[in-house]
């Protein structure tokens, strides 16, 4: 195992990624799909009311995207700290 310091900064970067991605997770589902639904439903998007679209379609696409972004970020981080070639 590398030094404690190394582990600490690896972990702190990981936590930063997780927090930012979870903010997006909350925003696109709970905020756009539920809390702001009535307001967003005033707008129309590709034949959908926007709030309804986020609740039944958009949020799910964003979830998939978020996981793959995390995979990408962590693979790069693992390489940077020498866990992965």
């Amino acid at each position, binding site marked *: *195992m590398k030094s404690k310091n190394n*582990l600490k900064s*690896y*972990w702190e970067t*990981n*936590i930063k990624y*997780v927090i930012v*991605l*979870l903010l997006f*997770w909350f925003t696109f*589902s*709970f905020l756009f*799909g*539920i*809390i702001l*639904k009535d307001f967003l*439903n005033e707008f129309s*998007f*590709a*034949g*959908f*009311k926007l709030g*309804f*679209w986020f*609740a*039944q*379609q958009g*949020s*799910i*696409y964003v*979830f*998939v995207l*978020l*996981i*793959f972004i*995390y*995979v990408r970020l*962590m*693979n790069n981080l*693992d390489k940077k700290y*020498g*866990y*992965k*070639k």
Partner: protein
Amino acid sequence: MSIQTWTYIIVGITFSVYIGIAIWSRVQSTKEFYVAGGGVGAWANGMATAADWMSAASFISMAGIISFAGYDGAVYLMGWTGGYVLLALLLAPYLRKFGKFTVPDFIGERYYSNNARLVAVFCALLVSFTYVAGQMRGVGIVFSRFLEVDINTGVVIGMLIVLFYAVLGGMKGITYTQVAQYCVLIFAFMVPAIFISIQMTGNPIPQFGFGSQLSDGSSMYLLDKLDNLNVELGFNEYTENTKPLIDIFAITFALMVGTAGLPHVIVRFFTVKRVSDARKSAGIALLLIAILYTTAPAVAAFARTNLLETISNKSYSDIPQWFKKWENTGLIKFEDLNNDGMIGYSNNHSNELYVDRDIMVLANPEIANLPNWVVALVAAGGLAAALSTAAGLLLVISASVSHDLIKRVIYPEITDKGELIAARISAFFAVCIAGYFGINPPGFVAAVVALAFGLAAASFFPAIVMGIFYKKMNREGAIAGMLAGIGLMLFYMLKFKFDFFGGGDVEDYWFGISPEGFGAVAMLLNFIVSFLVMNFTSPTPENIKDIVDNIRTPEYE
């Protein structure tokens, strides 16, 4: 060829594939039995997780539920997908690095306590049995509707198949049959959806067809039309909420957190080779799940429009053939209250039509006049969805008994060979109990499925997340938190679903939150109690903190 002949052929082929895989993947060690030897690739695990996750409810019932609930159906769509973000970011990679066999294993070791392990075993068994009863029932229902055999015969056939590959192949057999089952179920779900999307809107992609204009010449948007039809009959607009938004919020949250805390989903991530594969396969799993979950709301809207247009206010004598066929099964009922020969469908006491929500998927191919082989395909898909989930749950049950109870608590000297025999015997008994509940379904199954998510949210999720992200959390805090969470969840459920403790109605809900969403509140209580108790008890030992450090770092590749 008739629907029945086609069903026998397609179901026969898929079942032979599952049995073939079972024979090919016989196992010899507990590591193979519990986690498929830990050598499953990211794609295979992603497909297996998707099949594991999508149950009879996702395949058969969800589109129908959304069809009747409109916007409110979003709780299932977001709730049952958003949990994977939590899994991938907060749980899966670390549990893979931890590298044991079960969820109670993690709880027991991280909180250095067999009492914590036993609480976890209790929750795992409660959650999994609740769930598996529904799956076996689903198998029986699909058999009885498509092959016109008795529901009980269907349950027994399903039991035999699952028994064969779960007992013989353990997790290895289950993993590779789930891969095959994913292919069957997604194909079976998409084919009718694409056909119907083309028929109704001219767009072959249901996700876009859902927002398109109707191709009936009116050039009206499908969803506008649906809103209008709904309002005319006295229902809420399809795209607006019926439940209060706070309840929608709580249910969505409870389902997400519950999904991330369900043991049969978590253990799938013990089977991959590396930490990075655990993250990647969570992404692949959600991508594969999203294909069905973004199609389901489209199917729901198509089916509802179709239903309202072909049936409502039409004369009973002109009704299409499929209506009468499904009337025989009791899934559609029409009672001519005002004797005018017309089918009056509305949201008040003059309603003359009862439609079971399951029909939206099961009868969809017939409503849309699709060829017989498509109808048979839907039967095979429903069976694949139910069997794959049942198998995953049975493995959790057998591992909880043979590994967590027998090996870790009752008889630690047991050899690997002895433990494998114990695992197979417990799998056998688990299948029998599941079959029994499938044949004699307890009336409370529907009520307790919400409890399964609520319990997972209130117990496992906080305990695991704090175990990874918060070194200071100690044994006493975690156990007290889990007990408080489960206790409150059980109390609320018993009060409002079973009329204990004085019962209560919708007006009596705490904060306006229904029992389905109450897992979110119980989870918060778990966190709070854990913190309070932690502050008054002895700190986490140093060697446990080292374990946590180790979990947080990936292995060298």
